[in-house]
Structure formats: C-alpha cells, structure tokens
C-alpha cells in the first residue's frame, strides 16, 4: 500500500508543457472553458433575444410582408390605446389574485393538517401533490369536461344543494373563477410542500410554552405559526404571482382559446393572438416588453413590501 503512494508521489507529469503557465492563469482558462457552453447559449437565446425584442418592437414587422417600416413608439401607443389589451390585463390580474389567494390558503391548511401527528402523513403528502405533476394539456381536457354546462359533474354536485345548471365556460362573468378553481386544484401542491418545510422549521418548544401559558390551538397558530411563516408565505405568494400571471394553457384549452368571446383572454393569450395568429411580430414584441415591465414592477413591489415587513 505504501508502495503505491510512493509511486504516485512524483506528481502530475502530464501537465508538462513546452511553456509554463502560472497556476492563476490556468485557473482562469479552466473557468472560461467551464463557462463557455453556458455563456454561448445564454448570449444567443437570452441576451440577444431580449435586446432584439426591444428592437423589433420599434418596427411594423409583419411576418408575411416583405417591408418592415420603422415606426418608433407607435406599437406602444397602439397597445396603450387598445381596450382589448387592458381588458386582458384586468382578466390576468383578477385570475392571478384569486388563484394565488386560493392556492396559498389551501396549501397552508393542507400543510398544517398534514404536519399534525396523524397517521398516513406521507401518504396524504404524496397523494395531494399528484395534480401538480400533470400537464396543462391533461388538466385542460379534464376540467373542460367537469365544467361543462350541459353534462358537467360540477353542476351535478351542485344540483344536490339545489343549484340550477350553470354554464361556467359560457358566462363571461364566471369563466375566470371557473379557470381559477381548476388552477387551484392543479397547483396547490407546491405551496403545500413549501409550507410543510416551513412548519417543520418552527421549534416545537414554542408551542409547548404557549400551551403552558394556556394558549388555544388557534391562538398559537395566529401568534406563533403565522409570524414565523412570514418568509415562507412571501416566497409562496411571490412565486405564485409570477407563475400565474403567465397563465396561458388554461384559457387556451379549457375555455377554448380565451372564450367566451374574449372573456378569458389573458396577457399571454393576447401576445399569442397578436404574434402567432395575426403574425404581427413588431406589435407582439411591444406586447412582450410590456408584459415584462408589468411583471418586473409587480415583483419589485413585492420585494419592497417583503423587506419592509420583515424588519419589524
């Protein structure tokens, strides 16, 4: 055994080069070799694309037309004056708000229940996360049928409490809550798992101390659990807002491309319609930039609120 080590000791001969590089230089070269594939792909598909998107948005660029006149800010002016755009923004904000509140509440309640010392904890956790794994394609087909006004099972269940059949996907006022219900069903599993991890990080002694002081279960939830979960709640709502604001598949599949009429057009449906149905690339690029700005503002506002609140 010692013999083997002795044999290895003479050191790495294979690095002998005709000229010598300092260790520092070698590390720099190695670093850039390691980074190269990432930087190449990132530059082409992200940096170039982002800059190009802003550039395209200044042109009246239509896919099927040979000329692309420069129009300055016209696309943005048109966008600003388009009622359909603002309606889509409104739908998206409404959908995002109820979906994020819904998934957060259901996820939190499920996490609290599942972290009680109940039997079958692991089983419930695995079961309740199933929908989150499904594709929007599959959940789209399922919920389009469940919500059907004619033969839908949701209406069947409601009929037992005396509710007359409702045309969920045909009523402009009901389609967004209906899509939101489907989305809450689909996506509460992620907040649930994040909340479970958050709850497990709260020291058990705090609850014991509260109990000795005579606190009820609800009181310890409000005065111990919720304040200590604040960072988790903020993570869940921030990721939820970013994710759900980009909703596309649910209106595309469940309510037939954003129907009835344009009642469930979201900003991404609007982008899709402009760029890939009307083939208006320049206008579409302006839409994409606008969406990016809105989302950056929302995220920034959330981060500011977070940092303020955490300071106490």
């Amino acid at each position: 055994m010692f013999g083997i080590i002795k044999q290895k000791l003479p050191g790495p001969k294979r690095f002998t080069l005709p000229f010598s590089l300092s260790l520092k230089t070698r590390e720099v070269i190695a670093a850039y070799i390691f980074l190269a594939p990432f930087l190449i792909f990132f530059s082409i598909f992200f940096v170039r694309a982002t800059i190009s998107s802003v550039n395209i948005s200044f042109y009246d660029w239509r896919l099927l037309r040979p000329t692309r006149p420069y129009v300055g800010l016209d696309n943005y002016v048109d966008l600003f004056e388009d009622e359909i755009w603002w309606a889509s923004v409104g739908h998206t904000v409404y959908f995002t708000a109820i979906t994020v509140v819904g998934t957060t509440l259901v996820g939190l309640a499920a996490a609290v229940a599942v972290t009680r010392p109940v039997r079958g904890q692991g089983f419930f956790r695995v079961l309740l996360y199933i929908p989150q794994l499904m594709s929007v394609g599959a959940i789209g087909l399922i919920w389009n049928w469940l919500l059907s006004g004619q033969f839908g099972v949701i209406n069947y269940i409601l009929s037992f409490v005396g509710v007359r059949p409702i045309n969920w996907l045909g009523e402009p006022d009901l389609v967004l809550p209906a899509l939101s219900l489907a989305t809450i069903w689909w996506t509460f599993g992620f907040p649930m798992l994040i909340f479970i991890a958050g709850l497990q990080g709260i020291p058990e002694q705090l609850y014991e101390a509260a109990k000795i002081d005579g606190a009820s279960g609800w009181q310890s939830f409000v005065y111990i659990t919720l304040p200590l979960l604040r960072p988790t709640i903020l993570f869940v709502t921030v990721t939820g807002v970013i994710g759900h604001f980009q909703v596309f598949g649910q209106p595309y599949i469940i309510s037939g491309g954003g129907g009835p009429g344009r009642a469930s057009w979201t900003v991404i449906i609007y982008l899709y319609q402009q760029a890939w149905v009307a083939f208006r690339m320049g206008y579409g690029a302006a839409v994409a930039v606008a969406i990016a700005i809105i989302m950056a503002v929302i995220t920034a506002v959330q981060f500011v609120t977070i940092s303020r609140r955490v300071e106490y």
Partner: protein
Amino acid sequence: MNLRNSSLFRYAGAYIFLIALSAFVLFPLVITVSQSFMTNQEVNRWPPKIIPTEPTLEGYHAVLTQQDVRLDMWLRNSLFAAAGYTAAVLVICAPAAYAFARLRFPGNKVLFAFLLVTIMIPGQVTLIPNYLLMRDLSWIDTFNALIFPGAANVFGVFLLRQFFMQVPQELEEAAILDGAGYFGRFWHVILPLSTNALTALGIFVFLGHYNDLFWPIIVTSSLETRTLPVGLSIIQSSYAGQYRPMILAGAVLSTVPILIVYVIFQRRIIQGVTLTGMGGR
C-alpha cells in the same frame, strides 16, 4: 384504550380536512378514468353517470387509431425532447455552476450579479426573436427547437452553484494532491457528491419541459412533430363536441407516464421540491 389520548380522536379535525381534500383531488381523476371507459351516448347524459354500465375500450381504441390523432408519436416526441432538454441543461449548467462556485477568474462576481438581474426578466420577451431565429435556422418542426433555446437555465446554475459550494473544500484539496486537474475535481469529487441536487434539478427540468405548452405550439406545426400537451389541445378543439370518451382516454394515457415516474421517484420528488424550490407553476 383512552380515547382522549388517541391521535385519531385528538386530531379528528385534521383527519376530516385531509380526507375531504383528498376527495377533492381524487374526484376529477376518478371521474375521468371512469368516464373514459364509457360509450359516447353514456357520457353525454344528464344526470351524468359515474360508473360505466358496460365498460368499453372504444375511446382508447379511437385515440390510438384515429387518423388525425397520433398519441403514440406525440408521447415519443415529448419523452425524447424532454430527455434531450434535461441532458442539455445538466451538461451546460453544471460546469458553469462549478466555475462560479469554486474557480477564481476575473469577472466572476460581475457575471454572477448580471445573471441574478436577468432572472427578473420574464422569458416571454425572448419568444418572438427566438421564434424568428428558429425559422431562419430551419429548426421549426425539429427537436433542436424544443431542446436548445431554453438549455442555458439560469436557475439551474444558481441551484447547482449553491450545492457545489457546500462540498467540503478539503476533498478537492485531497484530489489536487492526487494530481487531479480542474476537470478531474469537477468530475470525480463535485459531481458524485451532488447527486441529490442533480437528480432533483433533472426531474423538475424534465417534468417542466414535458408539460410545457406555449413554446411547442409555436415551433411545431405538423401532426408528426407535435408534443403531447399540444396534441391534447388539438384533440380538445377538434373533438370536444363529438367524441368525449376519446378525449378523456387521451387525458388518462398522457398522465400514466408521469404517474409512473412519480411512483418510482416519489420520495425524491417530494424532497426535491423543498430542496430546490422547484416543482411549482
């Protein structure tokens, strides 16, 4: 037995809630599976039937043989593209994460801060220029379009960098004494000690791609090159009014592969969500 102390009694509220929530989760799935075995007449009935009187495979037969429905092909495309994408992400992001975590080079901090800022910019801005690039490269309707544009996954770099930094420095120093170069240290020390992070990232990147809808809609156009979610949306729009059991059968068949993955990697997926913060929408 003392009823007051048994957990069943003390946590009755939690049990009732969990059972109700499980019912809410399972109900749509059970209805879908059950009605996928019905005939078209039986599905289109009020009040709806929950259990098929005479289970039939008509819907499944139709979804696999219909001229304009190529479920087998879509499934193959989805699996192949998702696997290729996952491999590309790992191959591209892991070395970059290693450089950021362990190597000293000019621009390390600046570059990393720049990547942090870009995470604030939503991917939608890149859609139109990347789509135009795919057209120029004639990559529309090819796997290249589904695999490469998203392969430089910034989040993957962050995540792996975080884990690589936790690998004890001494282990790498030991490898240096054994004569390992940068690649040797990366390959023989860092990667084997980060398998948890690598699998978690791999699983979520795979699932995310398998379930993606928007990008495949715009970069595929022929029936043979569609992916599963796009294919399902096509069945929905062309057959919703005509043949519901077939649509439900499509939903069931497209979900089975995911459930198989879930059963196998169940623990890793559940742990992976909290490990990585991935796995949401």
